[in-house]
C-alpha cells in the first residue's frame, strides 16, 4: 500500500502525518497529548502497516521523545516529533540541547494553552514560551500551508549553513481537527524537492566525536554566538525554501512575513496562525467599505523578521497586533513587544497597539475584530489611550 497524493478533504492532522511521511523520516518518537494525538496515531499506523519505513520509538514522556530524537539525529537520522502545551514545556531543557548541538530535528507544535488552569484548547503560549531555545519557529494559517511548510522545514533545518531544529506551529483543534480540501503531496515530487539528509557530523564509534560537551568560559560565548549566527543565516534559507517550493509546487505563503492589502493601508493588523484566514475576510470586507486596513502575517517568529516588519509598516498610521499569548509581567504579548523593539532604533514612530485574544480556545468572531479596527481608527484620530488590552474580558467573572 502506498500513500496517495492529490486533492482530498482530509483532517488537518492527517494532512500533517501524510506530509511527514513524504519526507521519509528515519526516526519518529512522540508521546500522545491532546490535540496532537491524531497526528502521531496516523504516523504510527503508517509504520505498523509498513506504508513508511521509519523507526517509531514509543516513549513514556515528551522529555524522552525529544531525547530519543537528539540521539537519533546526532547519529545521522532524519527525525520527527509532534507535541503541544505541557508536552512542549516538559521538553524545554531538551529543546536547548537540540539547538545547541545543532541538530536539524523537525517538530509539529499543535498550539494549545498551558496549565494552570488546565485547558486543552488553542492559543500560542506553549511555543511562544520556547522562543529563546534556538529553534526556528514557523506559524501556518491553514492545512495546505501546514503540509507545504513541513517539507520546507526539513530543507531549512538540514541546510549545512543552518543545521538547527525547526518547529512548525499549527493551531490546535482549529487546524488539527478541521476537515478541508488539501492537496496532498506526491512522493516523487517531494523526493526531488527534498534531498536525503546529509549530516555535517555524526556519532560514529569508528570516528569518535563529542556533541554538547562541557565547555568552560573560554568557549561558551562563542558556541552561543555560533547558534545566533546560524539562525541569522536561516533567514535566507527560509526565503529560498519558500521560493523553491513555489517553483516546484506552485504555492507560496510569503517568506518570513506575508502582506495582504497593505497598499495604502493606514490600519495594519498583525497576527500569526489560523487567525490570518479570518482576518483576510475582515480586511476584504472593510476594504470594500472604504476602510484603509491591511494585514501583516508573521510566518517566522524565530528568526524574528524585524527588517521586513519595519518595511511593511512604514506607511501605516497605526498597528494593531492580535496575539494569542501574554508575557506575564509586561502586560502584553511577546509579539507586540518585539514589534515595538524592531521599530524603535529604525526611528519609525507608528502607534502600536497590543490585543491579547483567543486565549484557551476562546473563539474570535468577525465582530470582535471589527471592534479592534474601530479602536485603531480612533487612535489615528485621538492618539493612544489604551496601549494593551485583553480582548472581550468578562468583568462580571472577575468581579465574582
Amino acid at each position: 500500500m502506498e500513500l496517495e497524493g492529490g486533492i482530498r478533504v482530509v483532517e488537518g492532522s492527517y494532512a500533517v502525518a501524510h506530509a511527514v511521511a513524504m519526507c521519509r523520516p528515519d526516526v519518529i518518537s512522540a508521546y500522545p497529548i491532546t490535540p496532537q494525538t491524531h497526528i502521531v496515531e496516523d504516523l504510527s499506523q503508517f509504520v505498523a502497516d509498513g506504508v513508511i519505513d521509519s523507526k517509531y520509538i514509543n516513549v513514556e514522556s515528551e522529555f524522552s521523545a525529544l531525547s530519543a530524537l537528539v540521539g537519533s539525529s546526532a547519529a545521522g537520522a532524519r527525525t520527527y516529533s509532534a507535541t503541544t502545551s505541557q508536552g512542549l514545556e516538559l521538553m524545554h531543557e531538551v529543546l536547548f540541547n537540540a539547538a545547541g548541538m545543532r541538530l536539524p530535528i523537525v517538530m509539529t507544535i499543535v498550539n494549545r494553552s498551558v496549565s494552570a488552569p488546565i485547558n486543552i484548547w488553542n492559543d500560542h503560549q506553549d511555543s511562544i514560551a520556547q522562543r529563546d531555545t534556538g529553534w526556528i519557529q514557523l506559524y501556518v494559517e491553514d492545512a495546505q500551508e501546514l503540509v507545504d511548510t513541513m517539507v520546507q522545514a526539513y530543507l531549512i533545518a538540514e541546510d549545512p549553513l543552518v543545521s538547527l531544529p525547526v518547529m512548525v506551529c499549527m493551531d490546535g483543534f482549529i487546524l488539527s481537527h478541521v476537515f478541508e480540501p488539501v492537496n496532498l503531496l506526491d512522493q516523487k515530487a517531494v523526493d526531488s524537492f527534498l534531498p536525503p539528509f546529509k549530516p555535517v557530523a555524526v556519532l560514529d564509534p569508528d570516528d569518535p566525536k563529542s556533541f554538547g560537551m562541557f565547555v568552560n568560559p573560554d568557549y561558551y560565548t562563542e558556541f552561543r554566538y555560533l547558534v545566533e549566527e546560524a539562525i541569522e543565516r536561516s533567514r535566507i534559507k527560509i526565503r529560498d525554501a519558500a521560493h523553491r517550493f513555489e517553483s516546484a509546487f506552485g504555492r507560496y505563503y510569503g517568506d518570513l512575513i506575508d502582506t495582504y492589502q497593505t497598499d495604502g493601508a493606514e490600519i495594519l493588523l498583525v497576527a500569526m496562525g489560523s487567525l490570518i484566514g479570518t482576518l483576510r475576510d475582515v480586511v476584504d470586507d472593510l476594504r470594500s467599505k472604504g476602510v484603509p486596513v491591511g494585514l501583516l502575517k508573521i510566518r517566522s517568529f524565530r528568526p524574528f523578521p524585524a527588517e521586513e516588519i519595519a518595511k511593511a509598516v512604514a506607511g501605516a498610521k497605526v498597528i494593531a497586533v492580535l496575539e494569542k499569548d501574554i508575557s506575564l509581567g509586561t502586560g502584553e504579548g511577546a509579539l507586540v513587544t518585539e514589534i515595538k523593539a524592531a521599530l524603535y532604533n529604525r526611528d519609525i514612530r507608528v502607534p502600536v497597539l497590543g490585543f491579547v485574544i483567543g486565549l484557551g480556545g476562546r473563539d474570535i468572531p468577525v465582530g470582535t475584530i471589527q471592534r479592534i479596527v474601530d479602536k485603531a481608527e480612533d487612535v489615528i484620530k485621538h492618539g493612544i489611550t489604551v496601549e494593551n488590552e485583553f480582548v472581550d474580558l468578562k468583568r462580571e467573572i472577575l468581579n465574582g
Partner: protein
Amino acid sequence: MKEIRIHGRGGQGSVTAAELLAIAAFEDGRYSQAFPSFGVERRGAPVMAFVRLSGHKIRLRSQVYEPDYVIVQDATLIESVDVAGGLKSDGMIIVNTEHDPENLALETEAAVRTIDATRISLDLIGKPIMNTVMLGAFAGASREVAAESIKHAVRDRFPGDVGEKNALAVQRAYDMMGVS
C-alpha cells in the same frame, strides 16, 4: 457561502456527519470546511459541529453564529439548547423527530422540517445511528448537496454492508424530504 450547524449528543456521530458533508460537497465541486465545536466529548452530552460550503476558498475560522441551516439529531436537545439560535430567517432547521413541525417548541422564523430519522435508521441500518439519515434529509430538503455525493462519502467511510445500508437510508431520507 452557506453555513450549517449540527446539534447532537456525544456518540450520535455529529462530527462524522459534518466531515461526510464536507467531503460530499467537495465532490460536488464546492469548497468545504467541517469542524467540531471542540468541546470535551462525552457520550450523551450536547455537542455541535459546523460546516461551511462555498464557491470560493474558505478562510474564515470562527464558529458559526448565524447558520443558513441547522440539523438537530436529537429533538430532546430543544429543551436544553437554543438550537435555532442565530438561524437566518430565510434558513431552515431540520429536526429528527416523530412529531410534526408545529408541535416543536422552536422559536424561529425559518422553515422547520421534521423527519423520523431514528425510525429510518432502525428499519434500514438496524441501529439508532441517524447521522447519515440526517445528511440524506438535509440533501433532500436543501438541495445544497447531491444525494449521490453523500452516498459516495458514506460508502467510502464505511466500506461493505454497513455502508450499503447507510446509503439506502440516505436515499430514503432524501426522497422523503424532497417531496415538500
